[in-house]
């Protein structure tokens, strides 16, 4: 029990953040600079980049990824490490919404039921994690695989009626921007207020930041684990409705396309994989940046084949920054 080492680790003089000051505002500023640098460089390279069409293309890129990233961020924030199974509620809701539509369901019950059914995936995850105390990565990897396989058996594919409101939602505009963007915007505002200013939000952060301290403060870890995994699945389910709106032929295998980008978005936004810290406004900017990358690549004349390469690089850089941050600041493991 060395007194000195502990003193030093907790000393206020010890360097905390690697870049741009401290806390959320520093992180948001850094991300904004990153994003505007990319936009600026693309605009200098080709002035056509600053057009309404480019803006819309980027916005469309954000719609599904953004909503999924919000669900993933909730998991990370609450100390659930990562949910690798979010592709399952995504596809499940997508297929269910098409099936319910074809059976003549009206919009509201269709949305509520297809999204709620997807929440079951989160409850199954939470059961294994909370009750059987299995590592979340292993559980969600397993449910992701099993769920993906089951979806292949249940729905070979689902076809969306091009005349349906679902398909129309995927191409329509509201208030001058693609309608499919609004779920992401609204979820961002909702989650930001929830986490920063509400009692349940505070407790999610507490559970993620230090589960033992949260527990001795009278917070039920089980309840919060179940709630976060359930809501993450629900949010992924909402992304599934957008997926159905964008993709008239839903293939169960397509869901995994988003796994890497959504983790990259969450980590780049500064959500600590150790849990307990992260900002949803930063996540919005992070998704915006990642959604601008493929569009910018095209303007720079690079083939879309380069996209996975850049996504991978961004993920590794973001995870490394997170690791460095954690190493320098966490007082104990």
């Amino acid at each position, binding site marked *: 029990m060395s007194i000195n080492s502990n003193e030093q680790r907790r000393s206020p003089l010890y360097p905390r953040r690697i870049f741009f000051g401290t806390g959320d505002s520093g992180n948001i500023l850094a991300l904004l600079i990153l994003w505007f640098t990319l936009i600026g460089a693309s605009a200098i390279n080709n002035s056509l980049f600053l057009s309404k069409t480019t803006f819309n*293309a980027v916005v469309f890129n954000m719609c599904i990824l953004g909503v999924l990233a919000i669900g993933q961020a909730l998991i990370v924030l609450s100390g659930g490490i990562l949910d690798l199974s979010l592709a399952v509620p995504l596809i499940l809701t997508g297929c269910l919404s098409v099936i319910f539509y074809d059976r003549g369901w009206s919009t509201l019950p269709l949305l509520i039921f297809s999204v709620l059914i997807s929440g079951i995936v989160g409850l199954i995850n939470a059961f294994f994690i909370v009750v059987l105390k299995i590592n979340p990565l292993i559980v969600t990897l397993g449910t992701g695989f099993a769920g993906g396989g089951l979806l292949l058996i249940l729905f070979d594919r689902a076809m969306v009626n091009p005349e349906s409101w679902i398909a129309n939602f995927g191409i329509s505009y509201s208030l001058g921007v693609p309608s499919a963007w609004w779920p992401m915007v609204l979820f961002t505002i909702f989650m930001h207020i929830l986490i920063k200013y509400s009692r349940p939000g505070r407790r999610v952060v507490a559970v993620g930041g230090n589960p033992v301290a949260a527990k001795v403060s009278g917070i039920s870890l089980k309840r919060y684990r179940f709630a976060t995994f359930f809501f993450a699945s629900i949010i992924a389910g909402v992304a599934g409705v957008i997926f159905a709106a964008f993709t008239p032929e839903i*293939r169960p295998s397509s869901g995994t396309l988003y796994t890497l980008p959504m983790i990259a978005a969450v980590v780049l936004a500064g959500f600590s994989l150790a849990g307990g810290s992260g900002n949803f406004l930063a996540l919005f900017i992070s998704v915006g940046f990642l959604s601008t990358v493929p569009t910018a690549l095209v303007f720079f004349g690079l083939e879309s084949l380069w996209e996975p390469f850049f996504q991978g690089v961004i993920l590794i850089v973001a995870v490394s920054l997170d690791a460095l941050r954690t190493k320098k600041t966490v007082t104990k493991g």
Partner: protein
Amino acid sequence: MQKKSKSWSVIALLSVVALVLPTTQSIAAPKGKFKLCVALGGIAGILGTLGTEGDPVAKAGAKKRGWAYYEVNNKLDAQTAVKNADLLVRQKCSAVIMFNGRPEVNPTIAKKLAKAKIPVITYDIGQPGWYFLGIDNLAAGEAGGEALGKLVKEKWNCQPDLVLQSQASGAGIVDAMRTGGMITGMKKICPDIPASKIKIFEGNGEIAVAQPAARDILAANPTAKKIAVVGINDAGVVGPALAARQLGSDYDVLAWGQDGNLIAGDNVNPDLKGSVLYFLEGYSAYAFEVLDQIAKGTPPKMQDKATNPAVLVKPCPVSAAQAKNIPIDKVRVANLAKNPSKTLYALYCPK
């Protein structure tokens, strides 16, 4: 010890059951009679009815020729496929039509069947020593391209603003023949489309991939509004068509696909003007070209590659309007079984 012998007998019993179970249909064979054996793929969606419900075309053809007929199902499972190979050897098949969705065990199966000197015809998946039967991808590409070219000429006087080529490089030579062939075919009608207007991108034959990629290309070419789309399959061209719809109502899109997956049914995308049908479920009608020569004792020379096939299936370009008049695959295959001397192309391809 006792327990062990007991478990062995269970395994033995199970394997007997396993060997017997895959047998679905057969016509008993007197000695010396030619025996056609078919190994089905085993999952719907890959070969339509050929996957799960047996191959009525092969059966009808065998019956017409007075051959014995025997059928197993590989069930999209590697172990089952290998077990089935042993079964086919024991059945003393004269020739085998093999559709195996788990090609990694094909070399093993090939060894077993070669040892028994049983000739094999394979569908769409190449294996050295097996007669290759498959769609003529290059012809499919060119036929689709020509059909699209005619529309482009008619609507835009051969002057599209942009041609989106939605490729799937993972498919290798098939992709080159299909998407490349579509460009070749289109240029037969509209030879003056400049290369600078053709944008190749990776769509992976998947809407969720092709759509955002096409969106970005359209953003980078904001003045282009008349968009022609070709690709490796229907999904690969519907994605870009939707991308244009998302970016604005001022786009005019002509998309022509391949494989016919999204051209049938009620939910056809209005920008998908046509596709190319392969009639996978009727492949066996072509197999008799090779089988008849084997039965005569004069087997044709080995052609076992996609680039050097024994039999090429003729592709059928159809417009969206024509596709509405073509019945579903179950009906088609039943009808073909009643006319065993024909092909689905002959029966259903619009003239």
